[in-house]
């Protein structure tokens, strides 16, 4: 699996190599893969520092993560490709293209996309945590992509580091030779030099024919108001320069290349992107839909024989309604979704109309985190105020007339009398956890309608529990509960399983006697009563007191099965005179009004946004 790249002499001087295309023997394209929090982004930052790609004083922590949300949550969501020049111990300069990959379980699609552009992968494992669920899944993805793997054991500065055991885990759990695993500390920078040397020697240089017709894979793209769509590409054959007439192989559109360059990490224009290199192409195309991640760019008049192998499309698993609080923002929301789709091709949506919330979209996501991130980006980057409704999965509803319909929104569920049976998607999931927590995990699985199928001891310290579980359970609160019941030790991984018949009903919520379609959701019949009760209680806490009493009811069909009441507010007045400072009084009134704007009027009831996601919180207590 591990091959050695040859270090050939480079005729150009180091400075020139920074400007011109590089001989493929001096290029290394690699990703860093890791379990969440194992320190991938910190190591990326140290590499940028050590290769003087960025000044230490310009260095914001985790530079590759450019989106606000990524910074705040400390996670990497969008891939990013950065070029660094490394002056190796052999006296040669190497062009490294570091392709960052996301690390959360929602985003495996992007991981595989990034890996297709690489010859190697640095597999980062936390010296205190060892191999975890996503270490396994990411390593598997990298091995399936035939990448050369450079194991690196991180956080060796911590007193609780046990690198020798971690090496053993890497060899035993992943079947990756780990004798030469590089010991590093992203925090102190120790071992980063060794890691760079290991990359030079362990990762193969790219193959490819510089004279052949252009064949470049689109890894990612983003929209720039002035230059149109800018695509991040990996050149497999040929080269690209400004003025080339190019064609998208799958979609067929042609365009004139308006410039090429690479990110270091800021955009740096280049004369040419040569074979084996990674960089960006300014397409000038104004319609984001014309540039599809996974498509291949070639010459218009001299196309390559066949496109790069396509990606398997990511399948949305979680569906939610997104509604602008102000219905006038409907068009803006659609435009914003289209712009986001440019570099998030997994995003899909269809228009949805709700009696309570007006016009919006039913949007499909890869997972809950993906949903939260997209919602936050829509609100922050596009200035929208949105309501998200309870997430749903894709149900297969078999009607009495024999027809099967896909239902992703509870409000679309046909009348009970016309339903023969309902099938819901299951996942094949596995949890890796210390044996101490085995019982807790099994209980959690049972509570969430799951069935344990197998348990394997990976080592004395970890057990892998396999189980089948309805996806609908997983998207509610399974993950949070798993974390809390195992004190954070458990890691979860899953793949899509089959569809199975379940006894499901639609639970409706009524506010002040009126059914609110956006609050309905589909639940197993035998848990409907408990869910209805806790949801009514939760809504009672979330909905602020109004000028009148608001009864909250949970119902299945016409039958009320739970009830709570929001009492009427009795006092809301600023009596104090403030020495005639009326401006101050008015400001307080304005502030109250702003608060109300963030709420949705349903009938005469003001409902805050979070009420529509209350179902996610019903088991909090």
């Amino acid at each position, binding site marked *: 699996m591990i091959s050695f790249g040859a270090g050939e002499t480079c005729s150009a001087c180091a400075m020139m190599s920074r400007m011109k295309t590089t001989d493929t023997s001096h290029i290394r394209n690699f990703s860093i893969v890791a379990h969440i929090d194992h320190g991938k982004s910190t190591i990326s930052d140290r590499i940028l520092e050590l290769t003087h790609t960025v000044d230490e004083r310009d260095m914001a922590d985790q530079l590759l993560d450019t989106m606000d949300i990524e910074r705040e949550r400390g996670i990497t969501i969008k891939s990013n490709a950065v070029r660094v020049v490394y002056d190796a111990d052999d006296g040669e300069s190497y062009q490294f293209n570091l392709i960052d990959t996301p690390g959360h379980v929602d985003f495996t699609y992007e991981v595989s996309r990034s890996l297709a552009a690489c010859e190697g992968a640095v597999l980062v494992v936390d010296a205190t945590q060892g191999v975890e669920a996503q270490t396994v899944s990411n390593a598997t993805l990298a091995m399936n992509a035939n990448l050369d793997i450079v194991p690196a054991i991180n956080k060796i500065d911590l007193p609780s580091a046990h690198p020798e055991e971690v090496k053993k885990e890497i060899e035993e759990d992943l079947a990756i030779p780990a004798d030469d695993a590089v010991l590093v500390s992203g925090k102190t920078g120790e071992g980063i030099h060794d890691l760079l040397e290991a990359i030079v020697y362990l990762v193969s240089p790219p193959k490819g024919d510089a004279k052949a017709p252009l064949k470049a894979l689109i890894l990612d793209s983003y929209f720039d108001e002035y230059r149109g769509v800018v695509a991040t590409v990996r050149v497999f054959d040929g080269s690209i320069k400004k003025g080339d007439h190019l064609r998208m192989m799958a979609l067929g559109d042609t365009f004139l290349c308006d410039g090429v360059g690479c990110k270091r990490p800021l955009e740096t224009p280049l004369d040419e992107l040569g074979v084996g290199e990674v960089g960006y192409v300014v397409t000038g195309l104004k319609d984001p839909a014309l540039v599809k991640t996974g498509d291949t760019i070639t010459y218009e008049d001299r196309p390559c024989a066949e496109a790069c192998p396509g990606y398997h499309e990511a399948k949305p698993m979680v569906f939610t309604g997104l509604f602008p609080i102000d219905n006038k923002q409907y068009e803006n929301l659609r435009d914003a979704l289209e712009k986001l789709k440019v570099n998030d091709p997994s995003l899909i949506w269809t228009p949805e109309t709700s009696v309570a919330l007006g016009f919006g979209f039913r949007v499909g996501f890869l997972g809950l985190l993906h949903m939260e991130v997209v919602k936050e980006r829509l609100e922050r980057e596009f200035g929208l105020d949105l309501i998200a409704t309870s997430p749903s999965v894709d149900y297969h509803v078999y009607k009495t007339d024999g027809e099967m319909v896909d239902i992703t929104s509870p409000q679309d569920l046909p009348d009970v009398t016309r339903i023969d049976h309902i099938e819901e998607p299951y996942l094949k999931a596995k949890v890796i956890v210390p044996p101490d927590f085995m019982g807790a995990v099994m209980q959690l699985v049972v509570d969430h309608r799951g069935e344990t199928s197998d348990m394997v001891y990976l080592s004395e310290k970890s057990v892998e529990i396999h189980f089948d579980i309805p996806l609908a359970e997983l998207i509610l609160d399974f993950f949070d509960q798993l974390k809390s019941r195992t004190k954070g030790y458990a890691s979860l991984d899953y793949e899509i399983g089959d569809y199975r018949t379940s006894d499901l009903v639609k639970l409706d919520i009524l506010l002040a006697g009126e059914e609110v379609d956006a609050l309905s959701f589909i639940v197993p019949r035998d848990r409907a009563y408990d869910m209805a009760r806790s949801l009514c209680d939760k809504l009672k806490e979330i909905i602020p007191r109004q*000028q009148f009493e608001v009864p909250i009811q949970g119902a299945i069909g016409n039958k009320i099965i739970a009830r709570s009441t929001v009492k009427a507010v*009795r*006092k809301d*007045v600023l009596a104090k005179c403030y*020495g*005639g400072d009326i401006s101050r009084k008015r400001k307080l*009134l304005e502030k109250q*009004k702003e608060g109300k704007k963030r709420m949705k009027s349903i009938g005469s009831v003001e409902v805050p946004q979070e009420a529509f996601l209350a179902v996610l919180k019903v088991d909090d207590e």
Partner: protein
Amino acid sequence: MSSSAMSCEGTGWRGRLIAEGANALYLHVPFCVQKCAYCDFASWATPRGDTLLARYAQALGKQVEEASRLGMLDHCETLYVGGGTPSLLGENLGGLLRVVGSCAPELSELTCEANPESLSGTLLDDLVEAGCTRLSMGVQSLCDGELSELGRVHDAARARDRVVAALAHGLNVSCDLMCAIPLQTAESWQSTLEGIVSLGVDHVSVYPLQIEEGTPLGLKVGDEEPAWNSPDVQADRMTQAQAVLEGNGFRRYEVASYARSPQSECRHNKAYWTGKPYLGLGTGAASMLTREGYLRLMEVCPQLGPLPECMSRVRLKVLSSRQEIAEDPQLPSLKFEEEFLTERQAAAEDLMLGARLASGLDAGLVAYARDLLGQSVDETLARLVREGYLSDALAPTEKGWLLGNELYGELWDLADGCETLVRRSS
């Protein structure tokens, strides 16, 4: 529809928007012996003998004289010295009243706020001699435990004694009382209310404690709403206060104010609610001037930039510190925050403020607002009557008192473009 005694002669309500001077003068004294735990007012703990007290009082006097020379005080009928703790100024307070008295020929109501702790017999003698007619006492509670929890420096006995002393000096006495405070119960509130009534005061103001961010109390309480300050408790206490005070011959004439007779109502505070212009001097003091009043003040205050077009009301707030005022009392040296309202906004504001009064919305005001703002005035008023905030006489109902913010917000929204122009004097 009620026709209040405040309705304007001849020119109708619009007359108020073109008055040239100020009908009322407010002077702010930003000093206290110690800062109360709940207070976020412009006031700072200051030692009694600090020379800043005298210098500040003299500076205010100079500013009053300057305003008077502009003719701003020609029709000024009321003075209110608030704080802080004005009584902390000692003999300087009487001096200040004398200056104002000599500058404002039509002055007939002179109110000083006073703290029981610093209200000595000598000070009382001097205030009466200087023309003071009203004393507003910060009593807050007649329960020692509650007082010390609030961080007040006086106790109940001292408060009773000083209230009686002030009454004995022939002053109209008002007591500020605070409800929904720590340790307070329905019983203790009852005894405070009855205790105050039994002293023979003619005016009582009742405020639920407002927990303000950044105050020691706000920090102590955090995000949790304490049970003693819940909206339900506040509503109970306000309702209880109304019952006790009305049972003892008081009338609630404003959301927070009770008086034994129309003569004992605070005319100064009523100016705030009835669109009459007022001038406020001293750190943090607020003024409301008409366009004409503002232009007149500009004659000596070049720092007040040009009046933006189409503005008919200006609200000013003094931003200069105590030291700055003491050291350089000239009006042209003052720093202001300036807020400008269009005529539509001013009319909506008058409706909003008028809804605080038991007398209800003045018929002249409603007619004027309808001319200016159109049919939406009647539609909103009709809705507020239908929803039970206003009576048929357009006066606040029980619901209108307790849920005032909803009522005021609706009326202010009539301005239809509520953003006001705000700037700082250069």
